[in-house]
């Protein structure tokens, strides 16, 4: 869409507006110049080089994955037989993979919601927690909270996982130390990651811990982008803090929330690093096993590359369905038509 607009403004006549972006080059002035060495070399390097790397290392593997998913290739045998959708049938009748998929669905339902609500609340406290008189302003000394909350985002996920693995440690861990310290002796030697009832919740908390700060900063930026007059107008009309947050802030930073929701959802469908660090074997009763772990294991330990590729395709389709759902829900509930990722 944007390119049509630019053409219109550049040419100034109505005709150009209906010419699609990839139209013959007559309408564009700069194409009339003769092809010089400068221009040819410029295009070859500027477009050719990045595209070559991108196509070879990103697009080509993606395409191949779809092809492999229809074969029984084990990676080390020279021949691969076309077996149609057999791999997919195998996946969907495999109890362990279905269990992993269920865990991913759990993550997709809870992770984005919890992270976003928590970071929205914190962002609101920072931005509109200040005085209700005079100019709209944030809480005093709040930048300290913002800076500290962002810390986890700078830490590699694997380090976060290992660190929390130690915090959850039954005997020497920080968490049980605190809990028994305040008198909750039933948590003495309680294995948070070793009990199938708590393993998933404990794992989710780690991921939330890692991302709340980032989204809080994102939402703070969004809220600061809202003109102060709007808040003032709402206040004059008698809206309290809560009402302002629900009726003014959230609708106006809706796009940011949608972006956050999609990113968190994609992360929840992956979640490989956290799971690998906290419970590399899939946890008690496979309660924290995710599809990505199963894929990794199938490919690089069992060498069933055809089957693993099919799992990858399932994962990709799940991601697409999720993104589509978020867009659809946002649109149906009256969100912006222009979707910005």
């Amino acid at each position: 869409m944007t390119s049509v607009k630019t053409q219109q403004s550049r040419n100034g006549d109505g005709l150009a507006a209906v010419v699609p972006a990839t139209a013959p080059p007559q309408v564009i002035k700069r194409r009339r110049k003769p092809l010089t060495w400068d221009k040819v070399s410029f295009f070859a390097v500027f477009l050719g080089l990045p595209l070559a790397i991108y196509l070879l290392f990103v697009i080509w593997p993606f395409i191949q994955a779809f092809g492999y998913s229809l074969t029984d290739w084990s990676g080390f045998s020279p021949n691969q037989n076309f077996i149609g959708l057999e791999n997919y049938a195998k996946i969907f009748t495999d109890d362990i993979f279905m269990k992993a998929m269920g865990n991913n669905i759990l993550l997709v339902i809870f992770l984005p919601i919890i992270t976003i609500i928590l970071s929205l609340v914190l962002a609101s406290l920072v931005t509109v927690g200040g005085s209700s008189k005079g100019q709209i302003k944030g809480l005093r000394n709040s930048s300290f909270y913002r800076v500290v909350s962002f810390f986890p985002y700078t830490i590699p996920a694997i380090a976060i996982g290992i660190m929390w693995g130690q915090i959850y440690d039954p005997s020497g861990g920080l968490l049980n130390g605190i809990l028994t310290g305040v008198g909750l002796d039933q948590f003495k030697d309680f294995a948070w990651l070793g009990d199938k009832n708590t393993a998933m919740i404990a794992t989710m908390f780690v991921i939330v811990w890692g991302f709340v700060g980032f989204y809080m900063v994102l939402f703070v930026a969004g809220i600061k982008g809202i003109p102060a007059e709007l808040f003032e107008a709402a206040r004059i009309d008698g809206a309290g803090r809560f009402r302002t947050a629900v009726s003014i802030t959230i609708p106006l930073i809706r796009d940011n929330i949608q972006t956050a929701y999609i990113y968190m959802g994609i992360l929840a469908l992956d979640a490989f690093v956290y799971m690998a660090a906290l419970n590399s074997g899939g946890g008690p009763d496979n309660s924290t096993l995710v599809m990505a772990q199963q894929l990794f294991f199938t490919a690089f330990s069992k060498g069933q590359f055809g089957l693993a590729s099919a799992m990858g395709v399932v994962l990709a389709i799940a991601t697409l369905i999720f993104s589509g759902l978020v867009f659809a829900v946002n649109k149906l509930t009256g969100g912006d038509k222009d979707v910005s990722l």
Partner: protein
Amino acid sequence: MSTKVSTPEMKSLHFQPRTPATSTGDKVVGAVSHTALTIWTLIVILPLLWTFMSSFKTSSEIFASPFSLPAEWKLDNYVKAWSEAGIGSAFLNSVIVVAVALVIVMVLGAMCAYVLARYTFPGSRAIYYLMLAGLTFPIFLAMVPLFFVLKNMGLLNTLPGLILVYVGFALPFTVFFLFSFFKSLPHEITEAAALDGAGEWRTFFQVMLPMAKPGLASVAIFNFLGLWNQFLIPVSINAAGPRVLSQELAAFAGQMGYAVDYGALFAAVSVTVIPVLIVYVIFQRQLQGSVSQGTSK
């Protein structure tokens, strides 16, 4: 009605904006806000402090009590982690791989975004959407075929192979972000450069690239964090190669079940966390600015 109410409000806004009377309600809200934020801050910072403190303790001290201070503040654990556990060489590998990949992806990404944003030619839209597709697909899908692409090129388990793959996967985000940035730069400037006799190359490197500096800085920060934290790509295609930091950490934690040296593990985590944290604290102003830039497209 509303005008009547707003007049005193406006007055106070204009004439005494610095001394608003604080009501009891405000104080309560302020106190509650500070409490909630403080609690979250503690949740964030305590695990980090605890990890740092534990990195000085011996294994038996760690088991004795999670809270006790180390008897001696010695760097033994750090020495052990850095040399014996290979965190040192992995750290250097990480620095090399991320630095080289970052430079390449910034240059290539800027060039590609520039061409796509400033020139219209058959297929330019298609290329742009191809880039977008790379942003949405899960990396997982590509790992198995990528393994064999690199194997056939002889780049499997090598740092150059890792660098090229990092560049490939960081490219879509870089192009996508810089595309809108180059698009917003005025066209008159390119024309002026062309009139002054600058060729396409010179126009880009001497005129456009310096103008895009703020955008480049933001993308570079996010690319750095993304590549530094990368885990899946190295464990898939560099499993037997010279390890990078995230890989070495995972390997170190993985063998822990047998030879337990928790102190060294905490030291290894601290070594991973602290440098980036320090850089972040120094540059946090710019970074917070770029978060808002990156999302207000």
